[in-house]
């Protein structure tokens, strides 16, 4: 029973991070109308930036700032590339997917070649933190608490922005119907750029939580995470924010449970098999597509 609770808590922490990733991904799908496969890769690159700053300055505040700044800059730099695709008569979502896959290739290769000579990075113990709560086999580390708590706070802030602010109304209007949104005077390009900015902010925050939770990163981490995030988004329903919330948490819990009771090397494959079956049986997703 203690193992189960420990795994459940671990799963909820990991699930919180997946929820944030899926939320950022879905924001791009709804507002910018792109499939941003490279979003998790940008998060991992931000983790590398954070690590580099920590190595150079040993200043946590600077590391956090650099993480967020790199994520925001990367996202905003990608906006003009995708804008060329969305300016055509019909929004070419498949072309955006191909372009974002190319970006992911480029980012992964840059990390493999030039950052830490391609070796995985490990964050210092002062960054990751020690275990704070011990109860038998249940051990909660600072990373897990931050990931879970930070995830909840970030989701609450994001949904507040989306449903209680004017900017959020603008995002939802663009997600609903881009042309009608333009007709009522919503600045499409400016709002689209702002959505990239929000996604970048979220990405930077995710990178911090991921680094504290995992304590390490590798150049190919983005590929694993990207596949999980997009598959989770499909399972929930493409563009479905609330569905993404539920499915992200479920994925985190399922992955950790499988890792805890079956050999770790098979856990990823089993999680993917489960998602694959759901996608094949219900291609519209469990909660319905929202685009």
């Amino acid at each position, binding site marked *: 029973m203690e193992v189960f609770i420990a795994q459940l808590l671990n799963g909820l922490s990991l699930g919180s991070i997946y929820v944030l990733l899926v939320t950022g991904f879905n924001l791009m799908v709804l507002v910018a109308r792109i*499939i941003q496969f490279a979003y998790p890769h940008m998060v991992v690159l931000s983790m590398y930036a954070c690590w580099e700053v920590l190595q150079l300055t040993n200043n946590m505040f600077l590391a956090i700032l650099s993480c967020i700044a790199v994520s925001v800059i990367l996202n905003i730099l990608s906006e003009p*590339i995708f804008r*060329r*695709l969305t300016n055509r008569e019909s929004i070419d*979502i*498949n*072309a955006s*997917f*191909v*372009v974002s*896959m*190319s*970006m*992911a*290739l*480029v980012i*992964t*290769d*840059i990390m493999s*070649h030039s950052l830490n000579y391609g070796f995985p990075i490990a964050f210092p113990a002062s960054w990751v933190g020690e275990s704070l709560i011990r109860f038998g086999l249940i051990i909660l580390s600072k990373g897990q608490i931050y990931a879970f708590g930070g995830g909840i706070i970030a989701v609450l802030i994001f949904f507040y922005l989306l449903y209680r602010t004017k900017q959020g109304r603008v995002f939802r209007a663009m997600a609903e119907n881009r042309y009608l949104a333009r007709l009522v005077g919503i600045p499409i390009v400016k709002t689209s750029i702002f959505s990239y900015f929000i996604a970048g902010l979220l990405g930077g925050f995710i990178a911090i939580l991921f680094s504290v939770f995992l304590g390490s990163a590798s150049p*190919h981490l983005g*590929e694993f995470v990207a*596949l999980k995030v*997009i*598959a989770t988004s*499909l399972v929930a329903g*493409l563009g479905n924010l609330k569905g993404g919330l539920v499915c992200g948490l479920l994925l985190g819990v399922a992955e950790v449970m499988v890792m805890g009771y079956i*050999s770790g*090397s*098979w856990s*990823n*494959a089993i999680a*993917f*098999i489960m*998602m*694959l079956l759901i*996608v*094949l*049986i219900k*291609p519209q997703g469990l909660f319905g597509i929202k685009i």
Partner: protein
Amino acid sequence: MSPLVHYFLAFTAVNILMCWSIYLPYRVGQLHFLTVACMAIAAYFGGFAAREWDWPFVLVLLVGIGIGTFIAFIPSLAIGKAPCFTVVIVGLTYVFIVKTVIENWEIVGGTVGFFGIPRVEHLLPITYLLLIIVGFFIYCIDHSRLGRAASVVFVDKDVAATLGVKVKSLGMFYQIIAGAIGGMAGVLYAFLIGSLSPEFFVFHMIGTLMCMLFVGGYTTMWGVVISAPILGGLPLLLPSTVASWRQVIYGVLLILIILLRPEGLITRRMLPSLKSKSKRQTIW
């Protein structure tokens, strides 16, 4: 023949086959990366059967094609008509699952790899003969009612359905053929190279194939015939310090081609004008 030329020709042939296996489902608007999983499974099966059971090459090739066909058939029942994005994720997930299974299965070498696949005499000419046969087959499909139906489905699935095209059956057909070609490519790759590693069947390979297909031109089968040797040969032409960055080069090329010339270098519209130019030259 020097080993460099041998491997260049071998990889070019396999790349062209794999690009065609992605080109075919994309005729109906589906990026079907499941063919990479078909290639991996057929390659490992072929290598294992040849080394452990002493199966002859022809039998291995036929069974490899059968394996690729079967693996592509099962998910095609669900994703025959699915949107491109769903097909991509299913394909990528399959590739990842297959890679994990191979890495954890010691009988096929696990992460170390599989070695000692027996050599086949004159395999390179046989490979190119098979390439010509497959190319002819694809040419026939492209210039048949199926090819014309696929063109309509690519533009608008609903209009195709109103014109009487069975969109799901057509999607399934192209996916299954692609799987068969992937299986063939896998077996040929295993015997041409003589060893296998799960690290080959990864995201980088998919990126390379996509680059060859989109840069060459996805509207016609001839684009990859030009782009595969050029892009595949880049690491041989460039200095080693630059060649090690080839994935970045492929990624940037792919982005540029999608933004500037989305149909690729060789488009369907170019082909009739190229044909008429060559006719005028022969008259003179």
